[in-house]
């Protein structure tokens, strides 16, 4: 519903807006959907002027159809695929994060969602030389960890310092559920609309600016006890691709393993429910440079 204002189109001056308001025509929809002849009589305005105004308003506010071929050409020229830096994840994602789409990572606490986001951010900014916008809602973003990961990729400080420039190619939100889930449920009726607004803004951002959007989500248990991504059924159509991260429980459950498994649970390009395992320590699988977190002498066990 767009309010009528003077200057919106030639011929729509203040006097005319006032007359229309007096006749209870306040928005563009009212103008377009009412009978022009009757309106011209009621407001004592010329039929021709009103008709011209209606045509201009319609032209300004309609959506134009685009042919499929043009859309395809545009998609081919503008979409980029950003590799995440981790070969196993790239295999699941059909070679990486696609711009213009939202990809979701969900997982329980400690499953490695933030680590994957850091790895992707460092890879995109170092290897692909593009900028990344990182929105952190959990307080888990530590620049020293990013520096650690960067130092694993290159040991020369000149290269580290020369990173930068390039346009923004990725927007990473960690996590979207931390701020939205307190608003959902109960007697609150705003939460759902805010969640869908956020989704709409992210999608428009991704499409208009050709960026890849990566969001993280928490998990909940379904009625049968299975782990599923959070934020409910209303959120599930929003991301184009969804990945579930889990810890890998090996023989010694007390040990702190850095192995994680990723399962593709929704994709429009690949068959689902494929699992890939990867090690959080070696992000780009360069085993010479130990990309692991601080090495400790294990005192016991």
């Amino acid at each position: 519903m767009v309010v009528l204002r003077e200057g919106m189109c030639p011929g729509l001056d203040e006097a005319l807006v006032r007359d229309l308001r007096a006749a209870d025509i306040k928005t563009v929809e009212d103008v377009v959907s009412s009978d022009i002849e009757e309106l011209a009589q009621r407001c004592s305005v010329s039929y021709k002027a009103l008709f011209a105004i209606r045509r201009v308003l319609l032209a300004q506010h309609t959506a134009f159809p685009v042919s499929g071929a043009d859309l395809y050409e545009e998609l081919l020229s503008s979409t980029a695929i950003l590799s995440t830096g981790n070969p196993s994840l790239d295999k699941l994602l059909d070679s990486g994060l696609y711009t213009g789409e939202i990809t979701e990572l969900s997982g329980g606490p400690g499953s490695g969602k933030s680590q994957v986001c850091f790895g992707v951010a460092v890879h995109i900014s170092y290897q692909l030389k593009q900028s990344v916008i990182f929105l952190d809602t959990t307080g888990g973003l530590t620049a020293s960890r990013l520096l650690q990961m960067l130092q694993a990729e290159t040991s020369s400080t000149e290269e580290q310092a020369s990173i930068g420039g390039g346009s923004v190619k990725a927007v990473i939100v960690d996590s979207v559920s931390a701020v939205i889930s307190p608003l959902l449920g109960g007697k609150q009726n705003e939460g759902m609309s805010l969640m869908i607004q956020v989704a709409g803004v992210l999608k428009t951002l991704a499409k208009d600016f050709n960026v890849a959007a990566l969001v993280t989500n928490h998990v909940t248990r379904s009625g049968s006890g299975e782990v599923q991504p959070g934020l409910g059924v209303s959120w599930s159509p929003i991301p184009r691709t969804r990945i579930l991260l889990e810890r890998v429980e090996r023989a010694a459950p007390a040990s702190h393993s850095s192995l994680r498994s990723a399962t593709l649970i929704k994709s429009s390009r690949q068959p689902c429910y494929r699992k890939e395992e990867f090690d959080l320590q070696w992000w780009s699988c360069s085993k010479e440079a130990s990309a692991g977190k601080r090495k400790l002498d294990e005192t016991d066990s």
Partner: protein
Amino acid sequence: MQRPVSSLSLSPGVKMKLVNAGFQFTADLLHLKPLQLSKETSLTQQEALEVLQAVRREEGGGGGGGGGGGGAGAPPSLTALELLQKEEEMRSIVTFSSRLDAALGGGLPVGKTTEICGAPGVGKTQLCLQLAVDVQVPQCFGGLGGQAVYVDTEGSFLLQRVVDIAAAAVHHCSLLVEDDEQRVAMETFTVETILSNIFLVRCHDYVELLAEVHLLPDFLSEHPRVRLLAIDSVAFPFRLHFDDLSQRTRLLNGLAQRLIAMATGHGIAVAMTNQMTTRLSGGQSQLVPALGESWGHAPTIRLLLHWAGSRRMAAIFKSPDHRGATVQYQITSEGFRDVDQSEQPPSKRPRTQTVESSGSQRDASC
């Protein structure tokens, strides 16, 4: 991109009236006077004035801030390099157990929320009391020289124990005095000043806890020297008589976000203790931290204190910054300390002995 009216921070009724009158974007509201707005949307004059103020604030912030700043609602953005410089200035709170400090990269980090979970008697309250004393260690000794706010929900804050820990800390620091600056600092670092720098709040149920967390930002602005908020425990008020579990999850998530906002906004470390509960999965039972799966996402760092036979172990279960590690510690009459195999520290022998027997009982039952 135009900013929709529904994203402004106004009450839902006001937003609905605005949308019904046809105002979708804030750009539509810019050129209106309050009287006009209230006539068109049937809002009261007061509400119309608030709406216009909110709109002007957003526009003014967005226009003036440029690339670095944002509107009144959005926080300013930093580059990773700026964040790194800010982090290097922030120190951590030492726990006096050097192995745990090494695992945590210096100690409990400031500006993050840490959860300490463990079975009863393993030492969660002791660690919180130790932290409340350690945060006050003067800066010339490597500490933060700050104050602490201690929120007690279980009634486990024992003053005599704090006096013991404080006396041990003062003694420890006085042995390290090397130069004049440290000598001067030691004059202000006594048991009395330590006790006077701990602000104790006693909450009896979850409503009081939530109210206290609501009021804390103002308190923190008035007392800028506070560097630690310890909540012992978060689980206790939320596990009593709570029938509606989804409401509990919502309240906890909201609480977590407010704590994170306080930690990053005021530069304090938040330490919370949590209890353990049993989870049955596929016929097997497992001890997991209480308060549910979604609470696991709330703290940034999770420390799990558990028994291994008769030994107390601290494990870093979840942290974006540190590798998972397990260290052994002990509780002595001086507080939270390392286990030192070479010398015999004056440990509380009776406690470890009784605990040994109950520890093995625990092993049998879990």
